[in-house]
């Protein structure tokens, strides 16, 4: 076991795309933690999706062995953190496992919203923050200015911050030296009762859940009986060890100050909640480590198999995904229109997209997803207070005494020339302006309070497009406020398609209803008869379009004996019909549902 004085536990924080994962890879390489032959694009982001999207979705960790300039051997534990607002709680738990954080700032972009947000999280966790200026080889790099920004805006010294290029391996050792020199060694008593913080866990089909943990006090070893303090679950430890890049190295024991993994025949990650404390059953700690909270999904959406017969497959896929993602929730739901499916809860829209993509890719499912919604709070006239997770449950307007929707505090950072655009956007999204702070001569931070519902759809994309990509966003929930809400129903051929209903702010209903009807008209194929598409609130029609009857769908020329190509066309058409849902007499392809989700993109 390494002496405490020779251990450094740190994580890397950054705004998205500032080079966090690339730096992590270079540190691993520098410490020979990586076999060059197996080098994937980015080593710590192991999920295929993560690499594609260029963001870290789950935390991950690696142990590095570094011989420093002072000739001593150090153990450096790098704990990677997720890089998106949806996963802020996970970030905070990863940070709680560290004593320091390397703050990566892009030498040309400078400080951005998540630079700030993540640094504050690090400072809140009492971490030593070590700024590093990355991408100094870019022609647009302005390291001196960026250092000044860090000092002005964040208020931490940055004069000596290493200037590096993670991509080209410039100055990587300087970062390692600073980690050893500036980040405090962990403290802890290896003879005290065990307190180990869970900062991540992963499901492995052979070993069960692999729990990533930071030992705060005491020791843990194979064979020991342990208990999760929040869930109360008890296990016998099978194995403990440390992580390399993509490898696990068993060890005899882990002691205070160390970072490693444990396995204990745990069947689901839901039993190993991030932020929970592991203690020994025999000599338990009097109290858990601070900061645990149960993660609550904020965005809900109905997930249905495009082919109704695949319901069981979807259930099994969700069960498996849930093994590895405790922050997602799912509950059976049935819709008249779509049959059996699930109401799934997600941390945010990105999380939702990731889960959907994983279901479609890894489990080969075709899905129909209904419009995402937040959780509304409704007080009924009989005094009953209910949380509404799905439009299907929204009470009749006559029964509603008070409807409330969740609000969030929103911080936006952007160059000042876009302030007008941003204000217009936020106003359109019912944002309440709080204040605006000049971060430096050219950049401002705006604070708004805004309904969460307005943020989850496409706010971030809209912000990006109105600030030419320079705007950055961070938000957190601040509670419920009364609101004028209505439920909008969509009728096809006179019948309500419940899966297309959703709840929205009353003033937005008319324009949105019109847009939905237009989109559906574009996406529902013409049938043998005319189909009215209507939008209604409480039975009152507020928008209408008509899909004309199909007149022509024919391959006029079937000639020269080339039948194969025509056959493929008809085959495709047949497959398309398989994926259509029939509502009454109207067949709706799953694309139509997608189109409704993407309403605001044009």
């Amino acid at each position, binding site marked *: 076991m390494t002496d405490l004085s020779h251990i450094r536990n740190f994580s890397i924080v950054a705004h998205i795309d500032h080079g966090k994962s690339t730096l992590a890879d270079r540190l691993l390489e520098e410490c020979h933690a990586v076999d060059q032959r197996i080098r994937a694009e980015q080593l710590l982001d192991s999920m295929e999706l993560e690499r594609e999207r260029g963001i870290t979705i789950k935390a991950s960790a690696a142990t590095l062995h570094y011989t420093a300039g002072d000739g001593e051997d150090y153990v450096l534990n790098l704990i990677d953190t997720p890089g998106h607002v949806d996963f802020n709680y996970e970030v905070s738990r990863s940070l709680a496992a560290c004593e320091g954080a390397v703050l990566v700032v892009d030498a040309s972009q400078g400080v951005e919203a998540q630079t700030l947000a993540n640094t504050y999280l690090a400072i809140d966790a009492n971490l030593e923050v070590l700024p590093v200026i990355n991408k100094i080889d870019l022609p647009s790099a302005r390291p001196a200015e960026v250092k000044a920004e860090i000092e002005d805006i964040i208020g931490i010294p940055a004069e000596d911050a290493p200037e590096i290029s993670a991509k080209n391996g410039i100055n990587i050792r300087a970062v390692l030296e600073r980690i050893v020199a500036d980040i405090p060694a962990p403290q802890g008593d290896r003879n005290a009762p065990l307190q180990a913080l869970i900062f991540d866990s992963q499901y492995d089909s052979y070993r069960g859940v692999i729990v990533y943990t930071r030992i705060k006090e005491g020791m843990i070893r194979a064979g020991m009986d342990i208990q999760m303090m929040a869930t109360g679950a008890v296990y016998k430890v099978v194995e403990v060890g440390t992580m390399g890049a993509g490898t696990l190295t068993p060890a005899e024991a882990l002691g205070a100050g160390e970072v490693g993994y444990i396995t204990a025949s745990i069947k689901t990650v839901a039993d190993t909640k991030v932020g929970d404390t592991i203690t020994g059953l025999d000599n338990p700690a009097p109290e858990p480590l601070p900061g645990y909270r149960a993660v609550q999904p904020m965005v809900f959406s109905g997930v249905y198999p495009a082919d109704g017969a695949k319901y069981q497959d979807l259930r099994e896929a969700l069960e498996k995904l849930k093994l590895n993602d405790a922050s997602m929730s799912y509950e059976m739901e049935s819709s008249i229109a779509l049959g059996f499916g699930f109401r799934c809860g997600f941390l945010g829209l990105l999380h939702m997209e990731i889960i959907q993509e994983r279901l479609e890719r890894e489990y080969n499912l075709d899905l129909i997803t209904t419009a995402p919604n937040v959780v509304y709070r409704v007080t009924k006239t009989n005094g009953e207070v209910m949380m509404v997770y799905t439009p299907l449950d929204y009470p009749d307007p006559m029964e509603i005494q008070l409807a409330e929707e969740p609000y969030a505090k929103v911080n936006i950072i952007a160059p000042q020339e876009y302030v007008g655009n941003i204000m217009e956007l936020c106003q359109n999204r019912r944002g309440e302006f709080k204040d605006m702070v000049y971060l430096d001569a050219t950049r401002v931070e705006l604070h708004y309070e805004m309904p969460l519902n307005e943020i989850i759809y496409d706010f971030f994309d809209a912000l990006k497009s109105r600030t030419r990509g320079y705007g950055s966003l961070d938000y957190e929930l601040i509670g419920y406020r009364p609101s004028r809400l209505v439920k909008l129903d969509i009728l096809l051929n006179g019948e309500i398609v419940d899966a297309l209903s959703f709840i929205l702010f009353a003033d937005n209903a008319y324009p949105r209803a019109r847009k939905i009807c237009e989109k559906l008209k574009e996406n529902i194929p013409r049938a*043998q008869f005319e189909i009215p598409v209507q939008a209604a609130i409480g039975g009152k029609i507020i928008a209408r379009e008509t899909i004309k009857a199909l*007149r022509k769908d024919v*391959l006029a020329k079937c000639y*020269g004996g080339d*039948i194969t190509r025509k*056959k493929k066309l008809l085959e495709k058409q047949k497959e398309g019909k*398989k994926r259509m849902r029939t509502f009454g007499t109207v067949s709706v392809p799953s694309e139509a549902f997608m189109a409704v989700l993407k309403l605001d993109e044009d």
Partner: protein
Amino acid sequence: MAFLIKRPNKTPLGLYIHVPFCRSKCQYCDFYSLATKDDSLIDGYLDAVCDHIKEAGELAPGYKVDTIFFGGGTPSFFGAEGIAVILTTIRRNFDVDDGAEITVECNPDSVSDRLLRRLRAEGVNRLSLGIQSDDDEMLKKLGRPHTYSQAVMAYQRMRKAGFRNISVDLMYGLPGQDIQDWAETLDNVLRLNPEHVSCYALKVEEGTPFAELKDVLNLPDDDTQAEMYLTAVDTLKGRGFRQYEISNFCRKGLTSRHNLKYWTGGEYLGFGPGASSDFAGKRYSLKRDLQAYISGIRDGGDIIEDLQEIPNRERAGEYLMLRLRTSQGIEAREYEKMYLLPFAPLEEVMEKRRRLYHATQTDTGRWVLTPKGFLVSNDIISDLLLAQDGSEPLKKL
């Protein structure tokens, strides 16, 4: 005693010869052809096709060729000499029926009296003339290398040369065309009194010049195209034509026997780059590349693009897809006997379509599409394929 000798029953076979040469490429065309009359290319092509025919002839001893079709490209532009050489080669290597239908596609700009005389002499008995439109401006837009009066002259030459089975090709749904224009085209062309008319809707195919221009072409919308189609059906019916396929109309029973093979599951062999075949249970097409075809035939290389053995259920799907294009339509007993699959789920689809006036049933119980049904035939066929998908094979008939 000759009558006691049992003659082997030979299977009918169609031959298609793809002639990939044109004076110029039309703006909408996606058939494989080259705008060239390069002698060495043409010689190379001719040798390759003839060698190919010799090879194939050896594989088809049990067949009798009853249709031959020269398509393209523009066979008339390629010329009578080459066609004559190919026909001679065919006769030497295949058993060609005396009454075989032999068609040559012609364009108005390459029809001469000499060509026609020679074709007659070689036994060609059916001509197909690509007129497309009676409007010179439109012909120009389409990239056709001829005027309408050239087309009329070509037609009259054909008659004068003694051809009694002439088909004309027309197109509708053309840029800026309205129903009135189309009705006039039909009127004008029908005055020529052809035995056979094909009316094709313009379809903008990917990779053609028109595909790039799609948005500025001012093409009639689907509803207008549907009207145009029904106008053609009505007009032709009024003039004594019988509609025997979605886009094909004939008088005096003069169907295109060759094309009917495509739609009724007959066997055919294709020669020349891009040609398709359905022979001995396999479908395949040849590469759309003249050089590759020539060198492939010469050196024994691979000229086949995509060869598929068609499983039973897929054949059954083809039956539905192709037969419903024709006035023969589909029939329960025939279908079940041929494919050992139940017709009942299909019957249900057809019943529904009957109620929409998309289909009718003849006295003999055959299901055929109405003109209105032809217009949405993809929708109907894909419904049938879907209904067929889940069906269990019949245990017994």
